[in-house]
């Protein structure tokens, strides 16, 4: 590993060799967060299994991410962290775990860990919705916050997109 690096060693390892990368065909839940206009998009796929003692568990999890080093590393590490956890445990997932596991993130990149945790919440939300099950209060709140943020981002970037559309009319 390089001596002078913007990121901690662990981040670079995940970035170099991401874990659980790709798509799950017939996933039970998919969490799609982020916006390509901002430069970060994470898609998290989950497959749910059942265990006698613990009930529903995350049997498999994979990701696809468009984004910076931190976005890719946080996606990779969250799959490691939540694989095998019960659904109940996964709902209690704290994004601090990601930062800790990676050995820290530069301050401007903390939002990548938020995005990764959001992708997990959204994947579980998607699964429960598809199953027509009741959404726990905490998850519903997270979902509403994520939706609200998506709208705000779209609004923020509308201006730029408008400038660009006007330009293309000229050429």
């Amino acid at each position: 590993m390089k001596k002078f690096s913007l990121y901690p060693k662990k981040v670079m390892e995940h970035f170099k060799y991401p874990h659980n990368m790709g798509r799950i065909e017939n996933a039970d839940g998919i969490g799609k967060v982020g916006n390509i206009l901002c430069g970060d998009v994470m898609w998290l796929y989950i497959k749910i299994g059942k265990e006698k003692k613990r009930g529903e568990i995350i049997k498999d999890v994979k990701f696809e991410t468009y984004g910076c080093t931190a976005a890719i590393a946080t996606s990779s590490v969250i799959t490691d962290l939540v694989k095998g956890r019960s659904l109940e445990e996964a709902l209690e997932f704290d994004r601090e775990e990601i930062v800790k596991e990676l050995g820290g993130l530069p301050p401007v990149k903390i939002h990548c860990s938020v995005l990764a945790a959001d992708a997990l919440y959204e994947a579980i939300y998607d699964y429960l919705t598809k199953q027509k099950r009741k959404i726990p209060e905490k998850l519903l709140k997270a979902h509403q916050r994520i939706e609200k943020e998506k709208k705000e981002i779209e609004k923020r970037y509308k201006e730029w997109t408008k400038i660009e559309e006007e330009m293309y009319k000229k050429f």
Partner: protein
Amino acid sequence: MPKKIYLDYAATTPIDPRVIRKMTPFLKEKFGNTMSLHSFGQEAKQALEESRQAVADLIKAKANEIIFTSSATESNNLALKGVAFLKKEKRNHIIISSIEHPSIMESAKWLETQGFEVTRLKVDKYGLVNPEDLKKAIKKETILVSVMHANNEIGTIEPIEEIGKICKEKGIYFHTDAAQTFGKIPIDVNKMNIDLMTMSSHKMYGPKGVGALYIRDGVKITPLLHGGGHELGLRSSTVNVAGIVGFAQACKICKKEMKKTTKRLRKLRDKLIKGILSKIPHSYLNGHPKKRLPNNANFSFEFVEGESIVMQLDLLGIAASTGSACATAKLEPSHVLLAIGLKPQKAHSSLRLSLGRWTKEKEIDYVLKVLPGVVKKLRKISPFKV
């Protein structure tokens, strides 16, 4: 495979060893203050004045038209604010382009808070300012036009000779930020009708911490730094003699080697551009295909993010740069790439490779060998498939 490949010469350059050799005595025994009356001081003063001549020689100016500063950022601040504040009582309109360096963009923004009006000229999809737009933007209150010689990100060279001519006809000062072109392509301040010009040392193999501002004879500005009256009273501060001597030596080397270096780099640059566009699907060149710096190549790769390209390249020993928001503290994509009409996602996917004096063909070959794999790998991770 080369161990480390530096392709970020537009950010900064290493100092040429020949420059260091010239500087060393001024860090040691020739340490005098140029304002001192004794021989130590006079020795330093002579070196300063000889250096002034060397900088002037590179742009066909006179020595007394060169003011040394600490950086191109300072020179840009001095040009804009120095002209603006001297003329404030009578006229208050400034014209810049929309793709200037932050030191111009932010200075102009600040001048707006001080009662000045700023017009930002739009550019076309290559980043070119249209001189006709400038003609339309000029009004009787206009005091200064500032358009960069070449853009630091996309490498597009602006039609500054034409812009200078328009300004001359209208009796308006014309400033150009030549940080990226000075020492790399020929500049003639008279032929190009330039009144003020910003120069940088560390972009052309000189030391950091040195810049210069060309101020045409008769052009009046007000200083930003007040004190002992150094640099004709326009920039007080004890003179950085060692840095300036190094800067001057860098100028002499550039003057001698410019033609040869430019020709060589242009060839390597074109090989790089051609190779990347043909080897990587959904890749685009940003900036003008012909009117561009001999050492600049800037691409967008659809569906991959630039910061991760830069970091992947860093793992392979290649130093590059990007205009992606994820690479900045502000988390906003490059204003230059947005100004040429790129969608934010295309701006995020940009990669700048800038070549220099020590760039070798085998290094370009190595980049051409590994970059397609890097882009492919990142596209594989991405949910957006091409």
